[in-house]
């Protein structure tokens, strides 16, 4: 078999003797950031490099990505849109809200948005969800890759505002941006602890995995909102 769907919208495509991670190109014929285009079974796929995308690394680490074809996704830390483009591929009937703080990288992200029908770009600070609460609806998935020292808090305030009760949080924690000298595994433990206890919105971690060798000192994490006890 040349194409194998490993999760909704995420494929493995045979090229040479290898299976390569890919998503179905929503804008056939064009490559977003220089990635390879693969033809298989009459469809065009875009190769998805785990070294360039934390979400791809999470997929390769066998973490279940809860994104469906009609999901509504809030993507915090969209940068120039490398991963966002693949999320956009996965959502033929969904929508992704891409939040990015830097006008410089937003310039590139907008060029991607122009070629896709399901990306909503938002130039704002992800730590202040009230700044875009008038734009973003209730979402099924929050994916966060912001590399900020207070990333647990950013996840919590955004989940409080936007995440549906049964929604998922996908998080990439970069140990080096929280404490440059501490032992990463200690940092991870503390961050997980924070997510579980520190804020108004608390999470239950479903799965976590180190993203090495694709991303050193990064932890990938899937969590759900802990239901509030009344």
């Amino acid at each position, binding site marked *: 078999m040349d194409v194998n769907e490993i999760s909704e919208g995420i494929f493995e495509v045979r090229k040479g003797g290898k299976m390569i991670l890919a998503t179905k190109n929503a804008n056939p014929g064009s490559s977003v950031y220089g990635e390879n285009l693969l033809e298989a079974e009459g469809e065009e796929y875009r190769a998805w490099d785990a070294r360039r995308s934390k979400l791809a690394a999470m997929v390769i680490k066998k973490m279940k990505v809860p994104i469906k074809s009609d999901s509504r996704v809030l993507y915090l830390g969209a940068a120039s849109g490398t991963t966002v483009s693949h999320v956009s591929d996965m959502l033929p009937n969904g929508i992704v809200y891409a939040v990015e703080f830097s006008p410089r990288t937003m310039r590139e992200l907008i060029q991607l948005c*122009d070629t896709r*029908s399901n990306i909503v*770009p938002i130039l704002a600070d992800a730590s202040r969800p009230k700044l875009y609460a*008038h734009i973003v609806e209730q979402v099924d998935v929050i994916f966060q890759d912001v590399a900020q020292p207070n990333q647990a808090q950013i996840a919590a305030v955004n989940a409080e505002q936007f995440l549906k009760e049964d929604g998922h949080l996908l998080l990439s924690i970069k140990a080096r941006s929280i404490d440059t000298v501490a032992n990463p595994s200690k940092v991870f433990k503390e961050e997980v602890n924070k997510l579980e206890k520190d804020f108004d919105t608390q999470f239950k971690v479903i799965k976590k995995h180190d993203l090495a060798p694709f991303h050193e000192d990064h932890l990938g994490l899937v969590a759900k909102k802990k239901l509030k006890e009344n």
Partner: protein
Amino acid sequence: MKIITWYGILTIGDDGVSECEPFNKDVDELAELLLQKDVVAYSPGSGFDIRAVAIECGFVENDEEYNSLLRDVSIRAAKLQISRTNTPDMQIIQAVEALDDIDDVVNVLSERLSEWYGLHFPELGLSSEPLSRFVSEFGSRNNVPAEHPMFEKATSSMGSELPSADEALIRTFASNACELYDSRHSIEASIVRNMEQMAPNVTLIAGSLIGARLISMTGGLARLSQLPSSTVQVMGANRALFKHLRGRAPSPKHGIIFNNPLIKNSPWWQRGKIARALAAKISLAARMDVYSGELHPEIKVNLEKKVNSIKAANPKPPVKQKPAGKGYKGKNKGGER
């Protein structure tokens, strides 16, 4: 309770949305409204589903229309935001960076030219810009006309002959360097022009190039105006500052504002005091530029008064004492400012 969403203003009663005033369904108008300032004060509460209400109150027919309209509006708004962040000081920052880049490149080129042309005419004694101009004008030393001051040296040079193929190469190389010098001059002129227009007070006090460099280092005139003047005073003396903070050196007296003639042309024992006065006035000037934009010549007069009083109060170098700082052993001669 009132809520602002991207598509309209909602009034929330006890049992859900009681009233919905949608905005005009026009992408440009919606994009402008998306960027209004009071969204934070009237933002929807957590868990509020703005999509469902948009369909309920008839702003859009269905999910598809909601998605595509919101997408168009957001893209338009983001583009607006980006074009608004491109302020005149961005232009200045890029120009200052370009100046530095050209300096780097042109130094390398002129060094190469000096070595290369030195094979042929070692007595010339020119360097950098004059050298490039000379080579691109004449090429071989045999072309130097009799009335040129270098004529004598050219005719009696000990350098080797320059074959015509090589002459063409070296001449092109030199004229490339000349073009970079030209570009440097015009960038500098444009910085001077822009600074006078955008930051007249800073230009008056610090000079246009130092002012532009300060703006470039801080990332904008508005940010410069928010800095304490003690920071302005030592900005650009990073190495010396951190050395000081680690306790291994006295505090730096001046950063890039050293290049201002007021400091540069003063004797060393007055420089620290003058730098402090100058930095204070630069901060003041930056604030005037940001908040009023009008020229206030009196700050220059005040600065001069202050500098004169410093000079009058400290006419002679102080008798040097051994500093008492911990771990600090004497002045580091030739060290950083």
